[in-house]
């Protein structure tokens, strides 16, 4: 990225051509862990959108004051603070969802996409553009996770967002509920994504 990237190009880049999951292969751990129910995936990725936007904003605002040596430490501190805030808010106002997500909210801290964008983008760019980058990257992440969750919930439970959509005679695939299935589904999603890109002749 050279000086002042265009917001439109950034959107396309973060959602598709440079998608954090299937191009950068970042944030895989959570893509495997929380994708067997659409509702949980949705809440978790919304939390990531918020945390990434705020983290990029904060890093960008204070970037000129951060000494190089402790740069990454400060980023981690910022990310961790926002994630803990999200966790506390969920526990206070959405206790059922907080219980369903369990330890995964706390694990947002270790989501490599967040630190990746803070380090690669927010450290060099102005605040508003950094927020935009964080939010669009998180949407790219959200899109892929929702696609995986859609397949897993549909085949694993026969439901979508908890509503029965498959006919009664449908036998749920138990493997889709278990973590290993996320590997297969993620692999297939990456495959399809890349195949479409290749057909488009996207710049490498």
């Amino acid at each position, binding site marked *: 990225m050279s000086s002042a990237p265009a917001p439109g190009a950034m959107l396309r880049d973060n959602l598709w051509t440079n998608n954090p999951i299937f191009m950068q292969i970042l944030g895989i751990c959570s893509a495997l862990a929380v994708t*067997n*129910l659409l509702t949980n995936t949705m809440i978790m990725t919304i939390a990531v959108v918020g945390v990434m936007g705020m983290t990029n904003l904060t890093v960008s605002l*204070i970037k000129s*004051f*951060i*000494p*190089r*040596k*402790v740069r990454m*430490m*400060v980023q981690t*501190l*910022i990310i961790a*603070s926002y994630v*803990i*805030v999200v966790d*506390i*808010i969920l*526990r*206070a*106002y959405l*206790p059922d969802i907080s219980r369903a997500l369990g330890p995964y909210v706390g694990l947002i801290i270790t989501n490599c996409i967040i630190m990746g964008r803070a380090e690669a983008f927010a450290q060099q760019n102005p605040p508003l553009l950094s927020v935009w980058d964080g939010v669009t990257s998180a949407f790219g992440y959200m899109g892929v996770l929702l696609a995986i969750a859609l397949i897993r919930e549909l085949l*694993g*439970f026969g439901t979508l967002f908890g509503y029965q959509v498959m006919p009664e005679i449908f036998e749920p695939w*138990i493997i889709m*509920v*278990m973590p290993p299935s996320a590997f297969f589904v993620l692999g297939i999603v990456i495959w399809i994504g890349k195949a479409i890109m290749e057909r488009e002749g996207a710049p490498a």
Partner: protein
Amino acid sequence: MNKQSFGYTVLFTAVVSFVFVLALAVVNEVTADQIQFNQEVRLVRSVLNAMGVEFDDDEHARQLFNDVEQVEENDLSLYRYSQNDEVLYAKQYSGGGLWGPIRGHIGIRADAERTLGLTVLEHDETPGLGGRIDEPWFQEQFRNKRLVDGRIRMGSRDGQGDFDEDSGEFDGITGATSTSEAMERIINNHLEEISRALGGAS
């Protein structure tokens, strides 16, 4: 001041840490009451549900819970509640599931012949499989169930639940045999303890 100097780095780190930790402390302080309230309500609802006592909302549940006594029957700590001349008991149970501890409440009549209900508060079972012990259909099977030889056995029916109050059995979860067996073991261990405690008292 040189931003790469040792002194500045230490100062900056200290200030940044202080600011963020202070912000977290404030958020924590502001929501502490709400979080404690949520936990309390969850416990109250669980105890009342296990006893089969009906309530309208959280506030009503908390009101009813004021009349629930915590008693010791032969050294066993139980919740006791009187409703329509009937004495209801509930006990907090816990035991090992497939992946981690399972905790909740089980309710039983004073004559220890029938259960009143079962709730699951905490578990680490596989979501969608063993995790289904926290679904209403699974717990409703333990509503007013007759104990056969002081026990409730796991039967294997269609995985839809066994709602026959006199069968003395509950239906396990399809694809989660280990969790179902763990529930059978935990529940019966606690039923035995409760019956012994209540039997000894009469």
